[in-house]
């Protein structure tokens, strides 16, 4: 078992969560719940793990700084964000965006040319993570209904 702390959460991910709070995609209290949970320095498995909060799920791998966040949107229709050191994905029932960055230390930028998850060479890791998300959220298919690959 590994132990995670608040310092294990990359500042970029904290900023990303705050951006989502600002845009009202997640409520402010989710940040507090995450902070309180991390304050307890919880033990997590060495492999992939996830922690569900009422409106957000945090996923990670061991104690490393590979912590991801996923959440349902305010309408509860399965909008999610996945995040790792290379890229993040967001999708909703009505659209799909691919975001990429060279490393977690860089600001994330939108890749407007990528119209689906198979058009960018960086997607292999995220595709694996999507498959992991499928396993974590069997009731919530990660590909939006009606989305054409």
């Amino acid at each position, binding site marked *: 078992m590994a132990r995670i*702390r*608040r*310092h294990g*959460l990359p*500042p970029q991910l*904290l*900023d990303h969560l*705050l951006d989502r*709070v*600002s845009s*009202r995609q997640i409520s*402010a*209290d989710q*940040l*507090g*719940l*995450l*902070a*309180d949970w991390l*304050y307890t320095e919880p033990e997590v498995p060495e492999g992939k793990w996830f922690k569900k909060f009422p409106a957000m799920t945090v996923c990670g791998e061991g104690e490393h700084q590979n912590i991801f966040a996923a959440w349902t949107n305010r309408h509860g229709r399965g909008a999610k964000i996945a995040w790792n050191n290379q890229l993040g994905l967001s999708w909703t029932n009505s659209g799909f965006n691919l975001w990429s960055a060279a490393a977690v230390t860089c600001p994330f930028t939108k890749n407007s040319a990528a119209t689906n998850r198979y058009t960018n060479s960086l997607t292999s890791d995220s595709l694996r993570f999507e498959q992991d998300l499928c396993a974590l959220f069997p009731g919530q298919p990660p590909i939006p209904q009606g989305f054409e690959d």
Partner: protein
Amino acid sequence: MTASSVIEEIKQLPRAEQSRVIRFAFELARERQMSGEKLSDLAQRMRDSDDPAEAQKLREEIHRGFYGE
């Protein structure tokens, strides 16, 4: 006494003593971390603020409170 002089002294300590310093530093940072309730309150104020400068200040306060800096 300055932080730099303390750090230089820590560098001279035996490894076991350095480990005690490291544990103390982690504990100190943990004590300075804000509660989730306080962080949620700040995040709510940041979201509700119409003033970009105030929102930025709140964001920075959240960062300091989250990590205990």
